[in-house]
């Protein structure tokens, strides 16, 4: 996994979450860059359950790494349809495969068309990473 890798099949927040449309659902996770910054991830704690409504920008959980704790923010509003059942026991999945098996939750967006304009596409996100690279 390269920290510079960006997938062009999804959209991003400036805080390094990704959102990937998959039929009626949107899957949410964090980017390889975010994972590289966090280092070894030891715990993913989601403060939401299936069925909860969450708002775009809402903190929906935290990621603990050996180094630090970070908040997770919802890239879109919607109803939580699934949460990744494997992260409780295997938080390291986020390190190993942030784009796939390390997904965190799925939601049914309630305002996708209105909100998606605020997200970055892969190219914009790549530029964002370059701009914030000191």
């Amino acid at each position: 996994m390269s920290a510079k890798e960006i997938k062009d099949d999804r959209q991003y927040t400036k805080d390094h979450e990704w959102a990937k449309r998959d039929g009626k659902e949107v899957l949410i996770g964090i980017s390889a860059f975010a994972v590289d910054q966090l280092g070894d991830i030891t715990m993913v704690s989601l403060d939401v359950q299936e069925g909860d409504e969450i708002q775009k920008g809402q903190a929906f959980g935290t990621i603990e790494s050996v180094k630090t704790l970070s908040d997770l923010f919802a890239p879109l509003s919607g109803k939580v349809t699934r949460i990744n059942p494997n992260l409780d026991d295997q938080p390291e999945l986020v390190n190993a495969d942030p784009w796939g098996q390390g997904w965190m939750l799925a939601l049914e967006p309630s305002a996708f068309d209105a909100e998606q304009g605020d997200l970055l596409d892969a190219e914009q996100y790549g530029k964002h990473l370059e701009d914030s690279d000191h």
Partner: protein
Amino acid sequence: MADESVAAPELRKTPLFDRHQTLGARLVPFAGWLMPIQYEGIVAEHEAVRNRAGLFDVSHMGELRFTGPGALELVDGLVANDLRRIEPGRAVYTCACSEAGTILDDLIVYPRSAEDLLIVCNASNRDKMARHFGQAAAHAPQVTYTDESDRTALLALQGPRALAILDAAGSSLAPTADRLGTFRFAEATVAGRPVTLARTGYTGEDGVELFCSWDDAPKLWDALLEAGQGQGIRPVGLGARDTLRLEARLSLYGNEIDETTNPLEAGLGWSVKLDAGEFLGRQALLDVQQRGLTRKLVGFEMTGRGVARHGYPLLSLEGQVVGVCTSGGPAPTLGKNIGLGYLPVELTEVGTEFLVDCRGKHVPAVVVKTPFYKRPRTG
């Protein structure tokens, strides 16, 4: 994911900065320096030190030196340990206290003789301690005081294979295991370079620290990494240094100890010699001792799902705020979430249950015996 901003101008670089970049280190600002926080990853580096060996660049630490007649007496009056009972060649851990008995810094003093003492202080406190010691030295005309921090580099080689690697790099004191006792130090040459070699460290493992000139540091770094290549040596950053010291229950200035804490409540009473003559802060500490401690630093394990971090409130089971977490995080060797923190003395017995306020979540924890990790005895 909230971003941590990293930019800061005019950060200082150690003589090993180029080496860190070549090794792919992530460099972050620390106490005014640009320091490697990790190379391949904190857990891998932590594990290397516990099982094999790790090499640290800690050249940011401050080195202050007192020489001349009366140097030992002068320093002895500024630190809580009793230097007069220490023979030359033996390193001493001690706190320098304020008049109020709180901790200005924690130090290791290396007395080469009664007239030549090297003091290592924290990078974050270097300016403060340089001033503090400098003012005291000004009243002792025969004592010469120099801040050698800018020309002294410091490498730490730590782990069960550290001494063998040092010997393999070509040390005039080989075999180190036989010729340099724990907490002893001596002048030596390593890989042809003059060093002050000390069997000290900050990881809970056996190992050495090497003081050398700024210019010799890259050569020594390379020689030690090369000598350790077949032994699984790794360069180790400040991230793993922190997890290693936490498992070993070694205090970090700014976390467990600072100018609001005293060494007795911090569990450093073993390094405070109240009956061995006057030192700055002694009267205040005698008063503390007489009144009795109100709080103590304890080690704890999280029994619920949560990670304690520096600054999190500690609560009684009834939910009252009773203390504060000073350091916390996952302990890679133990596979548990651990922490240190201050609690009222009545809650400090091993087995006492309490709660940690993890940003609003009250997560159960229990007081445990420390150190969390103790290295296996060999030989």
